[in-house]
């Protein structure tokens, strides 16, 4: 086991329940800079809740989340929101793009929220769309593009702020194998290139195979297996 001191993002003994359902029951994990970690487990095991806690979207009932030396789980909502905007990126299964905005505006949105002017923000957003091979969707609304294109625009939006951690919750869940792989390859490659760590929640082994190591969540408890120490992180490239 590696010392936990060097982890970028770590969780210890997380507990969270929604009403009578105990979603997390003492889960913990570490995420190191630049690595891709798959979180696996059957549905209902608590893996999405683990991601939400790690990303500061929900507050755990117990336990602690640390990010870059700060206790994330003790921050007020405003600070966590700011952190999610600047340091984290998100790719969900579907629905994270604002249906009213064009793909370009969607990708530019996080920068604009951070005060970047419209011109430069949209210029950078266009570059990212091109990089993810969906430059032609720039002026279309999410409802007018295919699922794969939409997910790639979502990846562009997640990465455009050059986050340190990308949270991906079943990013290919709504896609077929070919489109899913394309999205994953681009996501992992772009993340590795910019040095972002990726937390990849999935129940598909083929998706998890893009990770450097995996964590298994079962009944709200997590298990770190195949630790990065056993085998150095390697770029899929």
């Amino acid at each position, binding site marked *: 086991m590696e010392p936990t001191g060097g982890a970028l993002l770590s969780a210890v003994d997380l507990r969270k329940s929604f009403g009578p359902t105990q979603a997390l029951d003492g889960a913990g994990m570490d995420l190191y800079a630049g690595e891709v970690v798959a979180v696996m487990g059957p549905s209902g095991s608590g893996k999405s809740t683990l991601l939400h806690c790690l990303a500061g979207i929900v507050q755990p009932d117990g336990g602690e989340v640390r990010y870059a030396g700060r206790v994330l789980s003790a921050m007020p909502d405003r600070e966590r929101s700011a952190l999610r905007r600047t340091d984290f990126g998100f790719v969900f299964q579907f629905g994270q793009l604002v249906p009213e905005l064009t793909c370009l505006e969607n990708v530019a949105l996080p920068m604009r929220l951070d005060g970047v002017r419209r011109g430069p923000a949209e210029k950078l957003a266009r570059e990212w769309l091109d990089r993810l091979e969906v430059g032609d969707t720039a002026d279309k609304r999410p409802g007018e593009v295919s699922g794969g294109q939409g997910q790639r625009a979502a990846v562009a939006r997640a990465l455009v702020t050059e986050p340190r951690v990308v949270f991906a919750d079943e990013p290919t869940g709504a896609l077929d194998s070919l489109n899913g792989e394309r999205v994953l390859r681009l996501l992992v490659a772009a993340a590795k290139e910019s040095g972002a760590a990726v937390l990849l929640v999935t129940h598909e*082994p*083929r998706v*998890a*195979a893009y990770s450097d190591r995996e964590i298994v969540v079962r009944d709200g408890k997590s298990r770190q297996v195949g630790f990065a120490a056993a085998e150095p992180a390697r770029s899929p490239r």
Partner: protein
Amino acid sequence: MNGVYRPEVYTPCILLRMSIANTLLGLLESGPKYGYDLKRLYDESFRQDRPLHYGQVYSTLSRLLRNGLVEEKGIEPGDGPDRKRYAITDAGVTNVAEWLGTPENPSLYLQNTLYTKVVLALLSGRSATDVLDAQRAEHLRAMRRLTTRKTDGDLADQLICDHALFHLEADLRWLELTAARLDELAGQLKP
């Protein structure tokens, strides 16, 4: 050598012989047994399509005896064909533990062995989840290698790797399913 999927290396026969020896050892862990009991227990626990031959049982036991993994516990008088009792040695217990702890190389027809391991782990009070998790890690390691190779390789590579990946994924799915049903299985094995 481990990691890359090479079906041609292993044959079902080798696999079968190796696992029968270890299985009998495992069955002896709960206490000394007669050869006949071992055969019956084996047939009942693993629901083999073809029951184990006596000959196979005795040849395996004599091999284990030779390797010092089992010992004889004396002959009792009676009119049965063979009334020898066998008990597992410390070396035998270590052997079983090592076998269970060592993930199988991902390969075709793996389930037989894996299933056997899971049942044995449950019967011997070990953690079947550990067995499955170890196997999953091994499978994923293999899949990662394939994924890396696929990403770097040409189309032919990709197709070959995908073929292997989908098979490995099927294994892993079976593992997940089994993991989810461990409680049910344990209930059936322990009356």
